[in-house]
């Protein structure tokens, strides 16, 4: 199948890919993880892992997608060999399983934007009860349906008319909104206390291995490295497009936005929380680090309360709360576009037409997202299982590069035609040594630590433990390994002409 659609320019490719990387994880997950891991102490390892995990994997994804012009199944089969096509299928499955519940989360953001805009959110006394009423009603289903339908409409129009047009509007709007919120937050009285906490390191905390592992996890989750999403967008990059510089721009751009979002959240929480000891006061740090069900506590329960106290004017408070939830919705929406495009592209590679592929993906996405829309425990389980599964996806991408020959991969595919800057031999050591070490340490740590919080760690029906993750990965891996020959043959044969 000849590649017919391309991103129209380097800048459109970068904007669309920034849309993948910047999601709700930059805004609510990043702030929570920083708070739980000692503020400034967390930021140092977080920057290091940007350099030794995110950027190298983004470079690999760009090179694989650009050279093979196929989604992960065909791409991994071409790069690593036909017998490893199941690794590509696993990468697709992990991101697709995340898509099922991410559409529900996108719907929440839309619903809260509407609530904020209508002023409904400020007529509430108990924000926890408001959140519980919402999640136990039919509304999450409705908004999940709206979110996935809107994304389907965008993806259906194709790369240039759909994805490019939508991200051209959404990503700059998201950045402008984040900047407005940032300026407002840092000009609030007492905001400096939040900024101080955000940047103050504690030498004892820096030496804690958990902080380093959380920093790696955050990088793995929020830059989009290793998800297969950037690989799919790279399928649509022009031949003359550069890889290393674009990859660096996306990794650094994503983390730069996380910093802005983090400063905004910390300044707001420290400025608007009542001082300790005062009636009704709550510890600001407890609120930032309080995860709530599926990490929702800060965003959907505490921040609406803070927005209502921002100024004496309801109109101004409504404005800032509305644009905050609109930013969240845009961030989630642009990431969801890439997740749906990943599944769609895989089915196109399988021989289906785009229209039919999208219909199947959206119908499956809606129905398989329903359990997460109904039940927050189910959503938390899927977030745990496939969140950790992303580390395996990253490992499979590094493995594919190793199978191809890291030096050959670097000199031919990364430093080949179109490259503006050349990548040196350091890349071989990162992909060949550092990434495998990070994968083994990270997965073992997650699984072993889950044993300590669940005595029945082996039980596959618990929400978050080793048993449920291993059980679900095993089912998926056994299935794809068993059908590897058929999946790879069908994918590669459909693309021979």
């Amino acid at each position, binding site marked *: 199948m000849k590649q017919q659609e391309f991103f129209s320019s380097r800048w459109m490719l970068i904007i669309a890919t920034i849309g993948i990387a910047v999601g709700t994880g930059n805004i609510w997950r990043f702030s929570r993880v920083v708070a739980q891991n000692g503020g400034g102490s967390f*930021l*140092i390892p977080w*920057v290091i892992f940007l350099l030794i995990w995110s950027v190298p994997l983004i470079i690999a994804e760009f090179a694989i997608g650009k050279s093979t012009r196929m989604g992960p199944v065909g791409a991994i089969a071409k790069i690593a060999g036909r017998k490893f096509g199941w690794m590509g299928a696993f990468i697709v499955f992990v991101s697709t399983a995340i898509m099922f519940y991410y559409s529900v989360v996108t719907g929440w953001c839309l619903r809260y934007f509407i609530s904020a805009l209508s002023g409904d959110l400020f007529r509430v006394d108990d924000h926890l009860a408001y959140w519980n009423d919402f999640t136990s009603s039919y509304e999450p289903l409705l908004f999940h349906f709206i979110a996935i339908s809107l994304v389907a409409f965008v993806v259906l129009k194709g790369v240039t008319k759909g994805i490019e047009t939508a991200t051209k509007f959404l990503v700059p709007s998201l950045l402008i909104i984040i900047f407005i919120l940032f300026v407002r937050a840092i000009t609030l009285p007492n905001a400096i206390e939040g900024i*101080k906490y955000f*940047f103050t390191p504690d030498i004892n905390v820096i030496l804690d291995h958990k902080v380093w592992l959380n920093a790696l996890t955050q990088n793995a989750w929020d830059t989009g490295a290793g998800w297969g999403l950037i690989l799919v967008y790279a399928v649509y990059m022009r031949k003359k497009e550069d890889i290393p510089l674009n990859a660096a*721009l996306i990794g650094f*751009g994503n983390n*730069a936005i996380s*910093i802005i979002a983090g400063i905004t959240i910390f300044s707001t929480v420290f400025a608007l929380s009542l001082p300790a000891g005062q009636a009704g006061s709550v510890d600001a740090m407890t609120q930032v680090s309080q995860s709530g069900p599926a990490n929702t506590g800060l965003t959907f329960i505490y921040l609406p309360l803070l927005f209502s106290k921002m100024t004496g004017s309801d109109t101004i408070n409504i404005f800032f709360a509305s644009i905050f939830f609109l930013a969240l919705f845009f961030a989630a929406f642009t990431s969801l576009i890439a997740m749906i495009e990943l599944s769609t592209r895989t089915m196109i590679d399988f021989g289906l037409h785009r229209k039919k592929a999208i219909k199947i993906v959206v119908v499956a996405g809606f129905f398989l997202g329903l359990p997460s829309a109904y039940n927050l425990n189910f959503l938390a389980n899927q977030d745990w299982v496939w969140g950790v599964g992303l580390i395996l996806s990253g490992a499979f991408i590094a493995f594919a590069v190793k199978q191809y020959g890291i030096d050959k991969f670097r000199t031919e595919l990364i430093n080949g035609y179109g490259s503006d800057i050349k990548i040196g031999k350091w890349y071989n050591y990162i992909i060949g040594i550092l990434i495998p070490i990070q994968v083994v340490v990270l997965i073992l740590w997650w699984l072993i630590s889950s044993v300590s919080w669940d005595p029945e760690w082996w039980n596959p029906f618990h929400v978050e433990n080793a048993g449920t993750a291993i059980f679900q990965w095993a089912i998926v891996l056994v299935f794809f390994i068993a059908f590897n020959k058929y999946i790879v043959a069908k994918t590669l044969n459909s693309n021979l002409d």
Partner: protein
Amino acid sequence: MEISTIITMVLVLGIVWGGLAFFLMRAIKYEKIKSKNGKK
């Protein structure tokens, strides 16, 4: 503000935002060269 806070701030912002600005400038420069050369 403590000295360690200022050092961390400079380090983190310098690497992340400095890195972003550096790569952005390089990308703009190479795009200009490519458009001048009409490289296809």
